[in-house]
Structure formats: structure tokens, C-alpha cells
């Protein structure tokens, strides 16, 4: 590893010929070192080292305690069910919707609703969804007291069930829009319309065209997003706390609890747990890759069998049903939050609040200004840095491809996905210690850097397909007309790519706004963001105030997306070819 780093550094410094080389090297420096050191510092207590607690002797006892913990088997079961279940189901749902609805009006509706769907923060959705499905929730209220006969909520186990089904569903509804976004961006690189046309003319049924022709080309672009969803679902804390099982909770919640247990010796078990969660995640990722390999082996043998029809043709109609459920659940959860934010009292079995009040908003408004400002600034700056680094990396990539050079730093770029694939909790404690040693915590610089660590991979992921499919000939024309390469880059390429660039920045903006643990761990309490305020209020009881903060979080993220949509529309109002 050290050797690789050295080579990256050398290749970056000796880059006379090509200054672009600095970008991948810089990008890696932002990520690799801190995460590796963070991991090591977090693991130290798992092996008995925690100097503040006066312990510095090697010991495997934390692992023994962890493995004998009565809650571990149950916690692992819930983690596996929700993590694997949610990722496979959301991939299946996203692909099914794409295959059955591509080209329909509903498909365009979905495309339009992606921005608000992605803006709705996970925790806010979970609060709304939980209110939807609870025995005292909106669905049951809609039939109570008539015709259900319930004057009091039934004692059913819906939200927070011990089998983690409600948690799995929450993540399914929240991750599917993200995978759909990735499908949209992936399809933009494939010539889908003509593929379908060719398939049709050869007599292939719709589903066959997708499984035989499109998905094999599309999947490589979905692999990383899927693995990110898998890693996220296995290690999510806030959703599992809001709607996950309680006896016992998931492994991630157990670890989180150990890390802030009053008994400081729990940090040892917590660190061991963080290592275990990382191993679980890595094992699941490897299994997913093996599974993918097996499926592609089997499928590639079948791909030429010439079958035109599929037994699942009859189910094609279900695609719009699932898509409507996906949209409906999100709309209802959001509506429930809006109603709560203006409710004074709203008890079972009332379908609407018994009394309305705007005081929830008016009292919160003065407290909202600072957190909204801090969130917006941190999100904007981290997005800006991210986009500069990402565009630099892509340019370098295309440069190298032109000159057919194989560069180690370019090949190592997969490392930027590490923050998506490694559970946050397994390296943040270590990063905190590291920053404290160097006296760097609690400053704007470190806050933006830690946000950048999580923003950059998403910006990279959302921009990659469109950026790589840009037709370089436009730039060549610019150069041929006498512009210097840099001028042609800024005046032609960047302008033509404005829309996807702004959209990927909006995704990054939303990611930055949602960061809770990273802000908490490196912020030293100096930065109150809209998310830290929302999470601390979510530990309380007042759903009305929670709704106000969650909606503010949603509106801020939505502003980012709206800017990304409206700005190009204004910029290109006189350029018809740029309208679409």
C-alpha cells in the first residue's frame, strides 16, 4: 500500500506533461489516508487499547464479550434480513419498473418525481412511513372507527416488528428511487430505443429484450450503486432506530449504543462490533459479486437460446402497480409530515388533526435560520470541491485513454467508493481521535472535508455515465475553430454538460445535508446543522416539531434539485437543442 501511495505521489509530482494527473492523486489523498488511519484507530480498542480508559495491553477479550453477547445472534439476523432483503428487493423493483414501464407516461412521471423523492431525507421518510403503517397510524385511521370498529388502535405488530420487515420495507422504498436514478443515467449511455426496436423486429417480447439485451449492458453501471445500497442497508443506524426491531435491535444500533454507553468499557465491545460489521459488509459484498458471476455464467449460456417469450409476460401490468405504490407511499408519508407540522393535537382515530396551529413553524423559524445556513454553506462548498475534483479526474481519464497510458492512480480511483462501502461507524471514532491529536476538529475546513468524503463518491457516481458519453468531437470542433484546449473545455464542453453537472451537484448537496454522524464526530459541537438539530429532536417525543425540522431538511435538499433544474432552463432558454 505504501509503495502504491509513493508511486501516486511521484507520478503526481513528475507530471510536467500533464497537470491533470494531480486530480486522481489529490482525490485519493482526500480519502485513503484518513480512512485507513480512522479504521486503525477505531479498531485499537477492539484489541484492548484505549489509553484514556487506562488500558494498553493486547487482549482479545472484547471479541469474546461480543460473541457471547445474548443479543448478537438476533441482531445479526435482523441485520442480514433487512440489509440483504432491502438491497435485492430494491434492485429487483427498480429493474422491474424500468423493464415494464420504459417509454410510458408513468415512466416520465417517475423521472420527474426523482428529485423530490431523493430530497426526502431517510429519517423524515421513516417517521412519516412509521406513522402510516402503525396500528394507530393513518392507514388504520382511514377505516376507523368505521368500518373497522376500532375506537382504540388494535394491538398489532406493524412498525418496529421483530422480524425487521417494516425496516426492510422502509429501505426498499427509500433506496429504489436512488437505483432508478442510476438506471436513468445508465440508460442514457445505451441506445435503448434502437435496441428495443431491433429486439421487437426479431419478435422478442418486452421482458426478453430487457433480460437478454439491455440489462447485461446496464448492470455493470448498477454494480457499484447496488453495493453502496447493500453496505448502507447493513449499517444504517437512524432508520433502524426509528422503525427497526427492538428486542434486540440491529447490529449497527447495538454498536452505536456501545459507543455511547455510560460504561466506558463498552467502547471495547463497540470497537469489536464495528470490526464485525465491516467483516459482515465485506462478506455480503463478496457474496453479491459471486452471485453476479454465477448469474451471468448461467445467463450467458441462455442468451442465445432464441426464446422470444417469457412466462412472466402476464405480470408486466404489475409494473405500474408497484410504481404507483412506490410513489403513493412517498407522497402519503410526506403529506403526513406536513399535517403533523401544522397540527396542535391529532389523536387516534382522527383522520385529520383535531386542531391546527402554525405555532410549530413560527416558534421554530428563528431557531432554524442558523442551522439552515450552516447546512447550506457546508453542502455548497463540499459540492463545489467535489465537482472540481471529479471533473478533473474524468478529464485525466480521457487524456490517458487518448494517449493509451495506464496510470496507477487512475486505476486506484475505485478507492473513492470506500466511504460508501465501509460502515461509517467503523472509522469515524478513529478519525475523531486523529483530528484531536492534530488539533483540527471543529473547524470549517475539517467539516467540509468530511462531507466531501461522502459527497464525492455520489457526485462521481451520478456524473460518470453522462460525462463519459460526451461526444469529444464537439470540443475538437472548438479547437479546430481556433480556441485553445482550455477555452474549448470551458466554453464548449462544460457548457454542454451543465445540466448533468448541476444535477450531480444537487445529489451531492443532498448527501451533504443528510450527514449526521460525520458532522457530530468531527464538528466537536461547533456546527449545528439542520440534520443534527432534527436528529436530536427525533430523540424526543414531539412529532409536530420533528415534522417541522424534517420538512425544512427536505425543502433545503429540494432547493438544490430545483436550482439544478431551473438554472439550465434559464441559461439555455434561447438554445432549443439544449432544452432536453
Amino acid at each position: 500500500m505504501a509503495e502504491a501511495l509513493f508511486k501516486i505521489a511521484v507520478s503526481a509530482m513528475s507530471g510536467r506533461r500533464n497537470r491533470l494527473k494531480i486530480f486522481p492523486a489529490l482525490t485519493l489523498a482526500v480519502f485513503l489516508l484518513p480512512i485507513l488511519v480512522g479504521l486503525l484507530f477505531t479498531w485499537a480498542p477492539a484489541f484492548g487499547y484505549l489509553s484514556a480508559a487506562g488500558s494498553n495491553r493486547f487482549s482479545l477479550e472484547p471479541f469474546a464479550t461480543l460473541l457471547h453477547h445474548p443479543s448478537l445472534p438476533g441482531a445479526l439476523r435482523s441485520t442480514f434480513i433487512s440489509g440483504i432483503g432491502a438491497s435485492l428487493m430494491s434492485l429487483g423493483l427498480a429493474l422491474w419498473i424500468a423493464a415494464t414501464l420504459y417509454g410510458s407516461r408513468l415512466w416520465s412521471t417517475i423521472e420527474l418525481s426523482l428529485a423530490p423523492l431523493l430530497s426526502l431525507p431517510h429519517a423524515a421518510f421513516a417517521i412519516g412511513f412509521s406513522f402510516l403503517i402503525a396500528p394507530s397510524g393513518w392507514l388504520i385511521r382511514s377505516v376507523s372507527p368505521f368500518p373497522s370498529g376500532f375506537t382504540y388502535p388494535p394491538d398489532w405488530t406493524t412498525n418496529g416488528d421483530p422480524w425487521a420487515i417494516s425496516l426492510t420495507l422502509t429501505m426498499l422504498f427509500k433506496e429504489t428511487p436512488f437505483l432508478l436514478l442510476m438506471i436513468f443515467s445508465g440508460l442514457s449511455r445505451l441506445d435503448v430505443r434502437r435496441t428495443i426496436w431491433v429486439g421487437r423486429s426479431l419478435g422478442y417480447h418486452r421482458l426478453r429484450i430487457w433480460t437478454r439485451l439491455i440489462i447485461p449492458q446496464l448492470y455493470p453501471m448498477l454494480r457499484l450503486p447496488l453495493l453502496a445500497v447493500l453496505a448502507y442497508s447493513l449499517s444504517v443506524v437512524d432508520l433502524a432506530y426509528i422503525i427497526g426491531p427492538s428486542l434486540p435491535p440491529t447490529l449497527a444500533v447495538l454498536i452505536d449504543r456501545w459507543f455511547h454507553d455510560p460504561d466506558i468499557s463498552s467502547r471495547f465491545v463497540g470497537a469489536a462490533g464495528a470490526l464485525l460489521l465491516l467483516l459482515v459488509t465485506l462478506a455480503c459484498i463478496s457474496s453479491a459479486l459471486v452471485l453476479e458471476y454465477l448469474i451471468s455464467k448461467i445467463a450467458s449460456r441462455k442468451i442465445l437460446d432464441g426464446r422470444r417469450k417469457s412466462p412472466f409476460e402476464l405480470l408486466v401490468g404489475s409494473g405500474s402497480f408497484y410504481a404507483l405504490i412506490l410513489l403513493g407511499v412517498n407522497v402519503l408519508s410526506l403529506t403526513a409530515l406536513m399535517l403533523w407540522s401544522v397540527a396542535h393535537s391529532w389523536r387516534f382515530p382522527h383522520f385529520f388533526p383535531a386542531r391546527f396551529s402554525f405555532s410549530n413553524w413560527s416558534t421554530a423559524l428563528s431557531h432554524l435560520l442558523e442551522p439552515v445556513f450552516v447546512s447550506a454553506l457546508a453542502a455548497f462548498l463540499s459540492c463545489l470541491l467535489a465537482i472540481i475534483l471529479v471533473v478533473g479526474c474524468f478529464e485525466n481519464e480521457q487524456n490517458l485513454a487518448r494517449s493509451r497510458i495506464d496510470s496507477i492512480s487512475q486505476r486506484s480511483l475505485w478507492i473513492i467508493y470506500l466511504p460508501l462501502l465501509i460502515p461509517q461507524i467503523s472509522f469515524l471514532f478513529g478519525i475523531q481521535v486523529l483530528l484531536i491529536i492534530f488539533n483540527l476538529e471543529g473547524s470549517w475546513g475539517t467539516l467540509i472535508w468530511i462531507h466531501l468524503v461522502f459527497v464525492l463518491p455520489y457526485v462521481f457516481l451520478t456524473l460518470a455515465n453522462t460525462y463519459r458519453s460526451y461526444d469529444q468531437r464537439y470540443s475538437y470542433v472548438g479547437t479546430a475553430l481556433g480556441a485553445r484546449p482550455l477555452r474549448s473545455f470551458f466554453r464548449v464542453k462544460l457548457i454542454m454538460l451543465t445540466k448533468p453537472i448541476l444535477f450531480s451537484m444537487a445529489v451531492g448537496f443532498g448527501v451533504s445535508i443528510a450527514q449526521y454522524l460525520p458532522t457530530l464526530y468531527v464538528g466537536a459541537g461547533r456546527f449545528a446543522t439542520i440534520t443534527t438539530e432534527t436528529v436530536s429532536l427525533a430523540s424526543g417525543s414531539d412529532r409536530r416539531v420533528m415534522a417541522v425540522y424534517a420538512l425544512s431538511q427536505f425543502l433545503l435538499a429540494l432547493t438544490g434539485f430545483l436550482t439544478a433544474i431551473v438554472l439550465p432552463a434559464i441559461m439555455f432558454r434561447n438554445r432549443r437543442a439544449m432544452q432536453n
Partner: protein
Amino acid sequence: MAYCPKRLLSIVIVMLTIMLNLAPALARDWPQIIAAARGQTVYFNGWGGSEVINRYISWAAGQVNQRYGITVKHVKVADIGDVVSRILAEKSGGRTSGGSVDLMWINGENFHAMKDNGLLLPPYTQMFPNYRLVDTENKVSTLFDFTVPVDNQESPWGMAQLVFLYDSEVVNDPPSTMAELLEFCKDHKGRFSYPAPPDFYGTTFIKQALLELTGERELLYKPVDIGKFDQVTAPLWVFLDALHPHLWRGGKAQPKSAPEMKRLLADREIFISLSFNPAEASNAIATGELPESIRTYVHEGGTIGNTHFLAIPFNSSAQEGAMVLADFLLSPEAQARKSDPSIWGDPTVLALAKLSPEQRTLFDTISLGVASLSPEELGPVILEPHASWVTAIEKEWLKRYSK
């Protein structure tokens, strides 16, 4: 925890080093501390889950800014354990001054852990002008936080006593013992639960049950005797085994916190909930969070009570400012405002008898609130058992019910 001379020695050394470092600050008298505090920024870290409490703190911040020129930043956290972790990380990183936390809201096990690991400033509350008004004689928990001596290392802030909230619309005759609570649950299946330990409130409910049910209460105030653990706790497990099938959702899921219980009570999913604030029901009715029909009750023979405190970490960068803020929060004016159920309703730590007549009128004018019990109705306060029992009981509970 076994007594380990080496460990003890290292703690003593750390404490001595800290004391020597801070000696100049501590030698000063109160006017000097006030002078030094001017212009400081105090980062007050505390649980931020309640708008009512957040608003009260923001009022106090305005007051100390006006009077003493101190800027208070309220750092709202979901769990104070995160803050303990941060201070621990600061100590691991060798940060003995210039720490990020100046004052924190804390008690019980967190205080115990911080005191044990040398994360607190050496004794200082004895210097506070308002500290002499604290009712240390009758409110023993202001001196012993979960049986651990406070030793002036945290400043009393408010009193807490376990109370039960019930919906009088459906419950006419609330239970007054654990046995009656079990009967209630059998009659109203699924209408009561308690938060799953290690949640603070869940653990308190279990301690309350143990104190009521065991025949050997005095043993609970000594460090846990593993040999007698089974014998002392046997009645508790019999009770819980009988109770669990009748809990909310058949005991297969439990609420994760007391705030979640409060929501369930408002949603009519459960009929009885619990709280540590005797005025919580009145306050929540005033804000519309709970309906008018909610009332409060306690068990015969008393319920567990304790005190919550404000503590200054060993490496605070604004110690003087933190002290002035903590002292202000202890003043009759701030304490009276805090105990008003329409503002927060957190009971005072002060002895009314020690106040001047004018100061006492501040308290006399406060109305108790529609759903609160009078001090007589609240009954005696039972002290928290020794902290070592809590760890042992939690462990056994997890083994039995959280598999």
C-alpha cells in the same frame, strides 16, 4: 471492578496533574471568576430532544449574556453518551486543555464513568453563591448521584421522580403497586409497556419493580453480591415473566425510549406511560402534545427519585463562564422559572426554607398544573440502588428478554 493499585495510582496521578494545572483558576474567589468569565463562549452540551427545554436554555443563555457578558452556545445532542465519547477521545488525543465541551447535562452512570476516568474538573460547586441554597439535607440525591458521592464535581440542576402517566378517559382506578399493574395489564392486554433496557427509563422501571418486590432491599444499596444475586432478584423475574405476555405487542417489541412511550400514549396505543418529571403531564397538556385527560399517579411506598446535574469537563476551555452559567441556573429566579409547568415543570433542587421571602414568592405563585400531584401525593422518594446492581440486572434482562 476489582481494586487494582496500578490503575488507582494512575488515576491519582492524572487527578494531581489536572489539579496542579488548574490550581490558579480554583484559588480565585467568586468576583474574580465572574470577571474572568466575561467575554467567554460556553459550549453547553445537553440532550436536545425537547423544544420546551431548549427554549428554557435559550432564555438562560440570554440572561447570562446580558448580566455577565457570557455567550452560551447550546449544543443539542441525541444522547449525552456521544459527548462523553468525545471527551474520552480528547483525553486519548492528549488534549488536557482547550476542550470542546464546557458544561454538560449529566447524571448517574455517565457521571460515574466520567468521575472514574478523571474526565471532570476537580471540586468547584462549593464556591457557587447559590449552592448554599440547595436542599442537601432533605434531597440526599444532590450529594449522592446513584450512590456515588458527588464531591462537588457536578452542580445540582433539577429533581426527578418516577411517575406514571395514565389516560383517565379509559383508566378510572390506576394501579398503586406492581402487583396491581400486572392485574391491569391482564385486564387491558397490550395497553402498557416499558422501554427496553439499556434505555434509562426501562432500567428505572425494572429497578422500581425490584425495590417493590424484593424482600432484601438493603442489599441493593451495597455493591452487588453475585452469590446473592439470584436470590435477591428472583421475585423480579417471576413478575416480568408474568407481565411480558400482556405487554404492548405481546412483549415481542418494546418502545425504545420514554419519548416513544409518550407518543404511544398520545396515539391511544397504550393507556399507561412513565416519566421522570412529575410535571410532564401538565406541561404536555399545556403544549397540546398530550390530551387533557392525562393524569399522574405513583406507587404506594414511594418511587425512585434522583437528581440531574451540570458538570464541567476537566479540559473545558471556558471554566469560569461554565461556573457562572451553572450558578445562574441554580439561582432562585432560574429554578422557579424552570419549575413552572407551563415553561418546563422540572422540580427545584433548592430548599424553600433557605430562601428569602421575596425569593419564595417566586415559587409560591407557580400553579402546579392540572395533571400534577401535590408534594404530599407524590409520596416518599426511594433512592437509586448501587450502580453495580444496574449493570448486573441489565445483563440478566438482556439474556432473558432480548435474544
